[in-house]
């Protein structure tokens, strides 16, 4: 690297040539944000497989799901299901301001669910029997094993379980990541050549080569994921346009979205009118949008101004091919039966910017493309995480060889701080993530706010790992935390067998690939962590080809 040794942590800003100034920016912007970005990236990568993780974390449902797969339940017709749904809502939730019926799956089978806004404007749900239409079980009864499952990783990766404050912190980190990527590209002028260069067993040089290789290989993915992540919450981060042209009140923001998405809900007229039979609306809606019905939404039920929206199921084949994940929709006036609005599958209600917004959301959350693309995102996400980890480690490896004195007299103390943060942010986060899965099996079932306890374990392990990393010497801290990570990962199938009686092999035999996948990935992670310890404990003479040769190369 072309950085001059006398460039300090603060004094190097905007000095030297263009590339040198941005090498400084890349180093420091990258370093200070690398720990948070690693956490966001790794949990975001796990969030790709939110559903399999949730499946693993709710073992009580496994038998149920297997039974459902093996023998289809006796099922009523669509028109019967719609009638049962409406009867239930008329009887129990007549005054609700919105009814939502999910009559069946795309094949006309599956569950019959109803949703509504209760008196507190909260979304409430019930499930009705598909044999006789009776409320079969209260859908909002507490589950056996209270857990947020894989959704914990989704929430954490975009708002750190800290609401709007967390969203802003992650947003700032994402912007810093874009800055680090741009300044990184400026710094590495030999970007193409660097990609084909890997000098193993050369200490600092190897870390730099690894950092360059993963960064260059996944550069488009990383730009895309950081940029679309920001764009999803654009109206939170960049409110000036809405404020200037619409206003800052909640009603103004509604006016803004109404202008793009839909004509807006009609105001209730005050004149009573019974909700009509839904079946004709559903049949016309299915014809208009060309999809089987997924949901029927009735706004202002019981009022003459009521509106009926029919939404479609995206079939698997078409959602694999479409970037915009919207489904079809047809909106009717309940009183006249007039068609108010039709949206075809994949289209949006607004113009090009709305479509771009939908596509960016799709690119980030990858609802299209099926399992193959999920694995591609998972791999790219891991490589992105590796880029941040190798960057942070490279920073310290470079300074272990040569003290650069960027922080004056306190340089040694700051280096120690950074070493500890590296261990906790990388190995410690791994321990926290796998510890979250352990907590799922070990936290007692009956306990109040059980899901919060699981997340508490995640944060507690992470905090302890930082404490541990600052108490121990860096080398020992790496070894001990990687050791714990390896142990927890490799023993996960054993833990599951002891607590639920499920075994990795039988999961595979029963075709439960979601559970087998979670445990398989955990075991592979554990083996890699163990390998990293072994590599770290080799004597330097084996790890490095020739320290002297490297030193010469580095100083060039």
């Amino acid at each position: 690297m072309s950085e001059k040794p006398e460039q300090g942590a603060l004094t190097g800003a905007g000095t030297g040539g263009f590339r040198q100034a941005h090498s400084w920016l890349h180093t420091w912007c990258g370093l200070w944000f690398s720990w948070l970005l690693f956490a966001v990236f790794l949990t975001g990568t796990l969030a790709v497989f939110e559903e399999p993780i949730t499946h693993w974390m709710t073992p009580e449902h496994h038998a149920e799901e297997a039974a459902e797969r093996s023998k289809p339940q006796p099922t009523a017709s669509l028109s019967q299901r719609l009638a049962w749904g409406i009867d239930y809502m008329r009887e129990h939730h007549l005054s609700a301001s919105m009814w939502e019926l999910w009559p069946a799956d795309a094949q006309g089978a599956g569950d019959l669910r109803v949703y509504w806004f209760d008196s507190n404007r909260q979304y409430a749900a019930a499930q009705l029997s598909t044999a006789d239409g009776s409320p079969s079980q209260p859908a909002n009864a507490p589950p056996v094993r209270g857990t947020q499952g894989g959704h914990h990783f989704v929430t954490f990766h975009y708002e750190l379980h800290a609401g709007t404050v967390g969203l802003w912190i992650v947003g700032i980190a994402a912007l810093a990541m874009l800055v680090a990527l741009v300044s990184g590209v400026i710094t590495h002028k030999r970007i193409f050549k660097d990609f084909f260069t890997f000098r193993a067993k050369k200490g600092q040089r190897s870390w730099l080569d690894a950092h360059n290789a993963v960064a260059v290989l996944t550069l488009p993915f990383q730009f895309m994921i950081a940029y679309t992540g920001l764009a999803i919450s654009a109206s939170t981060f960049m409110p000036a346009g809405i404020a200037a042209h619409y206003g800052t009140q909640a009603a103004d923001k509604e006016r803004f979205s109404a202008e793009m998405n839909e004509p807006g809900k009609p105001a209730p007229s005050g004149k009573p009118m019974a909700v009509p039979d839904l079946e004709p609306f559903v049949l016309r809606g299915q014809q208009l949008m060309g999809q089987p019905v997924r949901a029927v939404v009735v706004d202002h039920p019981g009022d003459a101004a009521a509106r009926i929206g029919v939404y479609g199921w995206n079939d698997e084949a078409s959602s694999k091919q479409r970037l915009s994940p919207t489904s079809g929709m047809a909106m009717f006036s309940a009183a006249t039966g007039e068609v108010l609005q039709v949206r075809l599958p994949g289209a949006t209600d607004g113009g090009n910017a709305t479509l771009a917004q939908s596509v960016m959301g799709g690119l980030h959350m990858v609802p299209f493309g099926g399992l193959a693309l999920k694995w591609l995102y998972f791999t790219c996400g891991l490589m992105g995480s590796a880029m941040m980890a190798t960057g942070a480690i490279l920073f310290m490896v470079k300074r272990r060889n040569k003290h650069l004195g960027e922080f004056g007299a306190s340089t040694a103390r700051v280096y120690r701080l950074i070493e500890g943060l590296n261990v906790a942010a990388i190995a410690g986060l791994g321990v926290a993530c796998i510890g979250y899965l352990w907590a799922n099996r070990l936290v007692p079932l009956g306990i109040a706010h059980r899901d919060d306890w699981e997340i508490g374990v995640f944060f507690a392990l992470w905090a302890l790992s930082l404490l541990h990393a600052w108490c121990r010497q860096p080398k020992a801290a790496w070894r001990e935390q990687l050791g714990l990570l390896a142990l927890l990962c490799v023993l996960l199938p054993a833990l599951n067998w002891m607590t639920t009686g499920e075994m990795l092999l039988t999961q595979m035999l029963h075709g439960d690939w979601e559970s087998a996948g979670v445990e398989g990935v955990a075991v592979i992670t554990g083996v890699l962590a163990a390998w990293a310890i072994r590599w770290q404990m080799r004597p330097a003479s084996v790890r490095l080809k020739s320290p002297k040769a490297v030193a010469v190369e580095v100083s060039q």
Partner: protein
Amino acid sequence: MSGAKTAKRSAPFFQRLVAAVLGGYLLASAWIVFCGALSQPAAEAVLAGMQISFAIHVAAIIWSFSPVSIARVWVGLVVPVALLSVATWALMQWRG
């Protein structure tokens, strides 16, 4: 490196940081407001402006840490903000 010298030399860093964060945000915001003035109804244009605004903010940060004097950094941020503001005002007047 003496303490006083460090403080004196590090002043540009904080100035650059302020230019990057606040100046960049101001420029990105001025851009979105300008986009909204381009069409009526404004919603689609405002959304498009917001989508592009992050690239503008990143470019402004890169500019703020480039090896030019802090005065030039500010000129490079304030002049486009002023131009966008005038153009927005003119468009709004023209539309009435």
